[in-house]
């Protein structure tokens, strides 16, 4: 068993008691709520005549179904309207803060928590959404839960869980030019597999991780679940504190900041901590990485070959055959040159200001390929506003991108933003599952925001490093 890790410490601080099942009852420090997975939980609570235990530790937003175009109410999509109305009815008068579209604070739940300073080190954070692992970037213990567990949290402020093992993933060295956090996590999942993390929490460490800003750390922790790990985290450090200092939580409360800092420091993993497993990855060897298949673990470096399923471990072959048939790719080829129809820059993995800045810097002076429909969906209204203040929207629009309102959008196709037919998309999102982006014949290639920008411009999967020289026209 692990000892002295951040996971052990945060777990112990939040452990209420042991339940008869052998699970621990954990206090939840922050419960984030969105419209898709919560209505049934509120319903069950009502049915049982129970109250919300800690409304002030709960925060809601709307992201999955919200339109990214015309947002006039009622929404044109009746189902979306009814879900929004249900959420409004559930949170109104409950004491739960709601970052709704009129507040100017609306956005993807995993973008708004960190930007408002709701997400802090040493917290337990849950949400009915598997990408809750994102918040681990701040040294929080954050994981996705199902709707019955949402009911648990609403009613008791707690979740029932078993403690897991801790795997340290040390990414050494410096990342190369054109290589981002997204490439790091795609490489990690490619190496450890989509179920390699089942039963584990991932601690990301090493020079390449420490050098990342908070946005990059969030991209990495976000996709922990794609590797099977329900939670992933990075130990908090000065980079973390610098971000927190200027969020809503602390910008006018330096006293509160100083008061909490010792706690944040105290939950950092000890130097002599024990892990259940340690994996080392050479960060300097990572290249821009993309998926070739239909799971986030089916990845290849942009110059690396798509594997022959016959060369894979026996249990991976069948999935690989099916994936290659769906994607229409051949073993031995690289993904470079794979034709794309859609470029999607958005999602809780990669739609923060830094992602948009980097993509815009690449796009400036270039044009989206005539055969590509390209869109940027900022992660939140604040990201949108900040990007617009810098003129990023103008850069994207000038190049031919559609500049849209914040939401989950084409990451999972629950609003109008969907692939059609067998369109192929270059996507900065997190899942390339069959049907994920709204069309069961659609094809998704996951990649970093700058790689999406490059693909949008050339109309095919492109090694962004090859284009660097003409980047500043």
């Amino acid at each position: 068993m692990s000892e002295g890790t951040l996971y052990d410490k945060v777990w112990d601080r939040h452990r209420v008691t042991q339940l008869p099942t052998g699970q621990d009852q954990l206090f939840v420090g922050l419960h984030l709520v969105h419209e898709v997975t919560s209505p049934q939980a509120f319903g069950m609570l009502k049915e049982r005549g129970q109250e919300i235990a800690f409304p002030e530790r709960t925060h809601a937003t709307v992201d999955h179904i919200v339109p990214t175009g015309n947002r006039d109410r009622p929404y044109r999509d009746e189902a979306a309207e009814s879900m929004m109305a249900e959420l409004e009815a559930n949170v109104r008068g409950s004491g739960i803060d709601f970052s709704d579209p009129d507040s100017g604070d609306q956005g993807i739940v995993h973008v708004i928590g960190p930007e408002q300073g709701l997400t802090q080190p040493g917290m337990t954070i849950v949400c009915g959404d598997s990408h809750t692992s994102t918040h681990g970037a701040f040294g929080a213990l954050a994981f996705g839960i199902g709707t019955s567990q949402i009911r648990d949290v609403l009613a008791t402020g707690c979740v029932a869980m078993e403690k897991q093992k801790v795997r340290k993933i040390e990414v050494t060295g410096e990342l190369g030019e054109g290589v981002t956090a997204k490439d790091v996590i795609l490489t990690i999942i490619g190496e450890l597999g989509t179920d390699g993390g089942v039963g584990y929490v991932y601690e990301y460490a090493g020079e390449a991780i420490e050098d990342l800003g908070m946005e990059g750390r969030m991209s990495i922790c976000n996709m922990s679940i794609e590797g099977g790990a329900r939670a992933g985290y990075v130990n908090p450090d000065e980079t973390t504190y610098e971000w927190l200092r200027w969020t809503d939580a602390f910008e006018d409360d330096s006293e509160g900041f100083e008061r909490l800092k010792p706690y944040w420091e105290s939950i950092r993993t000890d130097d002599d901590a024990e892990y259940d497993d340690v994996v080392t990855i050479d960060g300097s060897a990572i290249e821009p990485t993309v998926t070739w298949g239909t799971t986030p673990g089916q990845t290849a470096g942009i110059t690396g070959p798509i594997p022959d399923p016959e060369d894979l471990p026996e249990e991976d072959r069948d999935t690989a055959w099916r994936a290659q048939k769906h994607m229409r790719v051949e073993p031995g080829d690289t993904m470079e040159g794979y034709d794309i129809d859609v470029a999607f820059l958005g999602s809780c993995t990669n739609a923060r200001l830094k992602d948009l800045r980097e993509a815009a810097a690449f796009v400036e002076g270039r044009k989206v390929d005539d055969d590509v429909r390209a869109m940027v969906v900022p992660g939140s209204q604040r990201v949108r506003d900040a990007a617009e203040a810098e003129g990023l929207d103008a850069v994207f629009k000038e190049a031919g991108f559609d500049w849209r309102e914040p939401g989950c959008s084409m990451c999972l196709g629950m609003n109008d933003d969907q692939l059609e037919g067998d369109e192929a998309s270059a996507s900065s999102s997190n899942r390339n599952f069959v049907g994920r982006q709204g069309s069961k014949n659609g094809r998704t290639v996951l990649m970093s925001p700058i790689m999406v920008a490059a693909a949008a411009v050339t109309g095919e999967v492109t090694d962004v490093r090859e284009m660097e020289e003409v980047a500043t026209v």
Partner: protein
Amino acid sequence: MSSPEFSDGEAPAEKVTEVSGTGIPVRGNDIDTDQIIPARFMKVVTFDGLGQFSFFDQRFDDEDNEKDHPFNDGKYRGANVLVVNANFGCGSSREHAPQALMRWGIDAVVGESFAEIFAGNCLALGVPTVTADQDDIEALQDHVEANPDAEIDIDVAAETIIYDDAVIDATVHDAQRKALVEGVWDTTALMGANEGAVRETARSLPYVPAEHIPGDEA
């Protein structure tokens, strides 16, 4: 046993000690929750009626014609034991996935391995997720295909799957087994009983102000 119902907040949940019935095999590793229930069917505010959308995009083509899929095959009608392969239920946390399967009529899922959130969501519904070795699972899938009317008996407490003359040595995760066998899988009721200790924990955390703890407001 019959499908478990939600208990109310007061009563303990139903004990799920065994599941018996006929099987239905869905083969393939890494079957994700988007395949189990596509996101477009989640634009609902209740779980009612989700059963019919189980594996929808695997079962119907673009013109809504039925494709080859066990869930379309009449020989498995009435089956309540789903037999799957590795990493079943990976992907999103949507409880809609096990809800859809349960409402289709599935009372237990047997497989090589399960994604964690999916298994937790199944437990919250009183649906056991039972694991066994790859060879045993594949043999069971073959058997079910050849004998769709054959009875399968899952003993949750003893961790066995019995069919024909075979006894599979299976695994039901410790906490899950305890919760099901003792009927304590309704964690809302279980945890609600510890209200005092919850407050104490909240008070001990430096980031939780007193005014966020109902009853503790100054």
